[in-house]
């Protein structure tokens, strides 16, 4: 038991690492603030393109979405960070992470919005258009609000996934929460800082997960 505590819950080491962890948490927050709003808006655009009436517009969009859903985000990130310099493009770790996450989560958010818009009956379109709304107005004021409400649990769930995803930025040495914790681990030869980081992730995301499981079970019924 003592061994366990000193290896995983070593208060002294966690106290030492705490300022580092807090700085890491700041970077994680910055990443979330950069990626989540862009992903939410980008995903909506992706969904609209995927729902285009023109096959020549729709199909390439589907192919791109499936492409980014098939490639693991870490592979995308490594490709952008370590591969693009060979083509003369040298993104900083932060930019590389943002671009990789945007491509990945844009595809996922896009699929969610698309399912939501699909779930709205045709009658809604016809009724809205017949009252004199333009196509753009119908989409903005009638279809999208209902669609978003239908897929709200999935949107929240994907957002939780994005926050969790930020941890892989540690692989390209972006000093976010997990990177800071792992650095503290390698300096102290003690995994306690990573356990502390896990506790921080839990404190942030547990409430969201609880909320989600309520939302999901309500929709499932």
């Amino acid at each position, binding site marked *: 038991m003592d*061994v*366990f505590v000193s*290896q*995983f819950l070593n208060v002294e080491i966690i106290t030492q690492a705490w300022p580092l962890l807090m700085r890491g948490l700041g970077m994680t927050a910055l990443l979330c603030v950069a990626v989540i709003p862009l992903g939410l808006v980008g995903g909506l655009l992706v969904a609209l393109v995927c729902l285009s009436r023109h096959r020549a517009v729709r199909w390439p969009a589907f192919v791109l979405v*499936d*492409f980014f*859903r*098939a*490639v*693991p*985000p*870490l*592979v*995308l990130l*490594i*490709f952008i960070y*370590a*591969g*693009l*310099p*060979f*083509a*003369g493009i040298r993104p900083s770790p932060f930019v590389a992470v943002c671009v990789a996450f945007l491509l990945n989560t844009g595809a996922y958010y896009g699929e969610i919005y698309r*399912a939501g818009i699909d*779930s709205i*009956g045709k009658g809604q379109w016809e009724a809205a258009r017949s009252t004199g709304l333009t196509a753009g107005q119908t989409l903005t004021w009638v279809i999208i609000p209902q669609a978003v409400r*239908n897929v709200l649990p999935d949107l929240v769930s994907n957002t*939780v*996934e994005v926050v*969790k*995803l*930020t*941890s*892989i930025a*540690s*692989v390209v040495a972006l000093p976010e929460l*997990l990177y800071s914790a*792992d650095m503290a*681990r390698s300096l102290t030869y*003690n*995994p306690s800082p*990573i*356990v502390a*980081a*896990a506790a921080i*992730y*839990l404190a942030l*995301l*547990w409430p*969201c*997960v*609880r909320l*989600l*499981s309520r939302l*999901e*079970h309500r*929709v*499932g*019924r």
Partner: protein
Amino acid sequence: MDASAIFLDAFLNRAVIDRYLPDILKGMVVTVEIALAVVATGIALGLALAALRSFRVRAVNAAIVLFVDVFRALPPLVVILIVYFGLPSVGITLSGFAVLWLVLSLVLAAFAEEIFWSGILSIRKGQWEAARSTGLTFVQTLVWVILPQAVRMTVPPLTNRTIAITKNSALGAVIGVPEILMQAQTAQSFSGNATPLLLGAIAYIVLFVPVVGLGRWLETRFAWGRS
């Protein structure tokens, strides 16, 4: 050299492809092994937990919910690092492959449990009552009446979630599991050329695009009756 020649030389270099394609293929085998192992144990454990939860024993259910919440809230890479670097210091040493399999199985089990449980909840009470009134026991009702109906409904969300989690096998590169990404990164640093990274991405596309397509098809086939 013009731009396209530079691009081809850096990203689709013939000599590099010839030299390192076998390594990437070996990585593909490892990725498939991990993916299959994770899907088998993760989904089986998830289903078992969801079935256990329907007995509604308070202490057991609280433990299941705690397990599910923790593994849904924690980033998989964090858990992988804790297990990989933490267990040796308490005297347990697992290979990178075993750690990756264990952690991803637990993550998938957590998500699968939640999805199966949603499915079980969505079966009307009348099904339980009707089945019990014909003389089936609780367990028989669960196994032969409720689960078959519940599982069918969970196919599309479960497929998509399973794909997302098995793709995390790329995290194995961080702890030295010789899967696709690890092989691609090693080859990239030996060859000083980005071709292996592109090959690695293509390998994932070859493996996962068919599965993503399958998920899309299942979604329309088993469409949830949302109005």
